């Protein structure tokens, strides 16, 4: 059994809408085309709708309206074909903690009608590849977080899928394990030619892994392109300033708004971030303006545009802040849902 390479588009999403009970509009008309053979990142803060999109594309949840085709099949009307073509690693592990590593892999194989020697061979191959051969007979309840995640990915690959979905694959992992995970994901695309749809709320992760990405915000796609393209759209630099003490309401805005050439300004009481055409020329002007209003500066830095700046440009908010807000909004909703 070998993987058939997909040509053309791995995933086509058209006007996808998902409304939950209580009229929560998780997806508000999404259009996306994801080409085969690369890593596509869905980037967005908590509650942006990433996981909902993945659940629909993997035939788990049903869309309210719109359509999704995966590997050429419709997720609602041809769910069986879609399920044969995909591997899914959800946010919750999906590993059966009462079984050992080998048994978990076997279970996935048997469900996919892989039997006997073929199954044994494939299971051994995956155990080896994901560095789990020594732990194959250990009950997975006792696996470390990183091992469980690796097994998770391995179990999604038993049947050699064409499209792999990774829903926040590194959330909750140590930074060290996260780097390991990234290498693994890179290897999968390069060596195995898999199409991977990866959701993440780590800007760094999207930047590192995704050949192309879509930024999701409040159930809408606000931008698409490669990380480089998106950053290149933002001409100019970003100035970050940290104040020595908290500023009064409106003081920062009052100080900086008169300055020409500040394209965008985002701040809280102590930190501010401004996008300017040329960092080096703008810094002294900004500092002077702040000092003039009695706002003492602790540190200042200039940087090339990051994905965070991209996000801010399209949504008007800082990513980390949106992420926190999203998490706060999401949790009570989840409690209610139960």
């Amino acid at each position, binding site marked *: 059994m070998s993987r058939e390479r997909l040509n053309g588009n791995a995933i086509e999403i058209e006007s996808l809408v998902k409304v939950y009970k209580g009229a929560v509009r998780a997806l508000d008309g999404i259009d996306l085309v994801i080409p085969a053979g690369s890593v596509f990142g869905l980037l967005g803060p908590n509650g942006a709708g990433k996981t909902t999109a993945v659940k629909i594309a993997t035939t788990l949840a049903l869309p309210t309206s719109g359509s999704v085709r995966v590997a050429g099949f419709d997720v609602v009307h041809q769910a069986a074909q879609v399920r044969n073509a995909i591997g899914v690693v959800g946010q919750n592990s999906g590993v059966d903690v009462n*079984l050992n590593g080998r048994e978990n892999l076997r279970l996935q194989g048997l469900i996919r009608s892989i039997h006997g020697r073929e199954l044994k061979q494939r299971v051994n191959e995956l155990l080896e590849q994901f560095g789990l051969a020594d732990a194959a007979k250990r009950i997975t309840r006792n696996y470390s977080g990183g091992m469980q995640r690796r097994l998770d990915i391995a179990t999604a690959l038993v049947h050699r899928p064409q499209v792999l979905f990774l829903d926040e694959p590194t959330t909750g992992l140590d930074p060290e394990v996260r780097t390991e995970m990234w290498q693994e994901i890179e290897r999968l695309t390069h060596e195995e030619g898999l199409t991977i749809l990866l959701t993440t709320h780590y800007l760094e992760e999207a930047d590192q892994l995704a050949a192309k990405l879509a930024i999701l915000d409040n159930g809408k796609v606000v931008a698409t392109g490669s990380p480089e393209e998106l950053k290149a759209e933002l001409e100019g630099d970003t100035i970050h300033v940290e104040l020595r003490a908290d500023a009064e309401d409106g003081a920062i805005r009052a100080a900086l708004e008169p300055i020409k050439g500040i394209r965008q300004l985002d701040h809280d009481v102590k930190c501010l971030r401004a996008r300017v055409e040329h960092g080096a020329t703008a810094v002294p002007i900004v500092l002077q303006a702040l000092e003039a209003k009695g706002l003492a500066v602790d540190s200042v830095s200039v940087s090339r545009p990051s994905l965070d700046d991209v996000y801010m440009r399209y949504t008007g908010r800082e990513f980390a802040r949106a992420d926190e807000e999203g998490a706060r909004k999401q949790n009570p909703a989840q409690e209610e849902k139960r």
Partner: protein
Amino acid sequence: MRELVGHSLTMTDRDIRRLVRQPWWIVVSLIQPVVWLLLFGPLFKNIANIPGFKAPSYIQFLTPGVIVMTAFFSGGWNGMATIDDVNRGVVDRLLVSPLHRSAFFVGHVLQTSVTITIQAAIIILLAYAMGAHYANGALGVLVLFVTAVLLGGALNAFSNGLALIFRREETLIATLNVFMLPLTFLSTAFMQKNMIPHWIQVAARYNPLNWAVVASREAITPGTDWNSVGTHLGLLALLLIVSMAFAMSTVRIYQRSI
């Protein structure tokens, strides 16, 4: 069809492995029926002396009741494991695979059947040692097993369906408690029919647990009314089918809500 069988057995195998790795659970589920027998037997022993009580001994009368009750609870609590599976993402992982939807539930029912068969065997042997007699020999005993498996299987599918709807242990526990214990006592499991209040007699007629008690008891009592056994087994088979259909329909409900 071959795929359905294969998938169901795969799921059963997985469920049994999971049970075997919880030795404490095994100990409890084997000891509990024994406790019922040893507790209720002596507790209600003198009932056999009431004029009009037909069975020769209370243990003789009680045995089918304890088997049925054990099967009822074994099947009924099975949804708890499914809630754990939901929370861990195991159910989602299975639902995005080509696993036959019914195999998920059939697998659980088969696993429960194995458990119930072992539990019933222990009760049957122990009761025999305590003086119970089984009329109709092997056939009577076979009916005991079949009845227990049908009832336990139906409860199992029902419980797993509820688990997919509730997805919260507390809600499932509360719901099951509300009806499982009352149904156990709204029956002739512990007391002869003409010795219980009229309204309970009426309620018992519509109580699946009582169908199982009647079929089992009839099958091991001399002068068996096989018509009654057949009818009640038929009703239980029907219940299993309805439960299964209910469970299957909850998959859609689950998929809509996530």
